[in-house]
């Protein structure tokens, strides 16, 4: 099943696919819309990719429940490395999906999945339809 991204995901140029295990994999190309200081990705664009990955993965998990919606409460982003002029990938893992709250972690990397450029923890409110 494909995941529909919000307008902001299209604005960032994000494409979504599934890896061999069926987990969602998000890819953001480098371009003028995501550049920060010359030669580097903007931290806000990296945060945006992490948010799209976290919320998208959660929405995907909730897709079996029609009418469910999610709303971010807190987002904490840690930056480990500067993002360079190339594709950036992201994936997320749901730590816990409760009745009202979901805890989600998202990770971003470029060439090597083990060398993260940033990660985010999101706590989201879940409303069931």
């Amino acid at each position, binding site marked *: 099943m494909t995941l529909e991204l919000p307008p902001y995901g299209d604005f960032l140029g994000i494409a979504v696919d599934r890896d061999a295990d069926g987990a969602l994999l998000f890819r953001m190309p480098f371009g003028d819309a995501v550049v920060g200081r010359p030669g580097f*990705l903007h931290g806000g664009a990296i945060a945006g990719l992490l948010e799209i990955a976290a919320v998208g993965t959660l929405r995907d998990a909730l897709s079996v429940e029609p009418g469910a919606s999610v709303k971010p409460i807190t987002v904490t982003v840690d930056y480990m490395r500067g993002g360079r002029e190339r594709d950036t990938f992201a994936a997320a893992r749901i730590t816990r999906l409760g009745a009202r709250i979901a805890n989600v972690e998202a990770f971003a990397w470029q060439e090597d999945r083990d060398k993260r450029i940033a990660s985010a923890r999101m706590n989201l409110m879940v409303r069931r339809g």
Partner: protein
Amino acid sequence: MPDAPPPSLQDLDPQIVGRLIAGLGHTGAIGTRYITHGDDWAELALDYRADLVGDPASGVLASGPIIALMDITTSLAVWIKRGAFLPHATLDLRIDYLRAATPGHSVVGRGECYRLTRRVAFVRGQAHDGDPTDPIAHVAGTFMMTDEA
């Protein structure tokens, strides 16, 4: 020959820097605007745009553009407090959403650098969508100076 550093890097007019960075790259693409600044703080705005929406059902802006707004607003506060437009990197940024931004409203971000050391800047800020006493988000973060070895 005086060995003064190049003026473009050291001389800081926060208004010019604010207008410059607001219009460049990612912050330019999301449409941030410089508003005003003080000794250790700056205010920038982000106008509502349909292509920045995170939840099509409600029309509420995504979290990402607000993080980007607060990142650049607090960055400008650091440059103002340092008195120099020198590079730094975001170490971490936490944002608490107190309520959803109202669809159609511009978001105003105010960032403050409340502590500056040689290598680290500590920042905090708030975002509102019309009424500063009713903020939509609070942020806290740190930046690492990248011009120091």
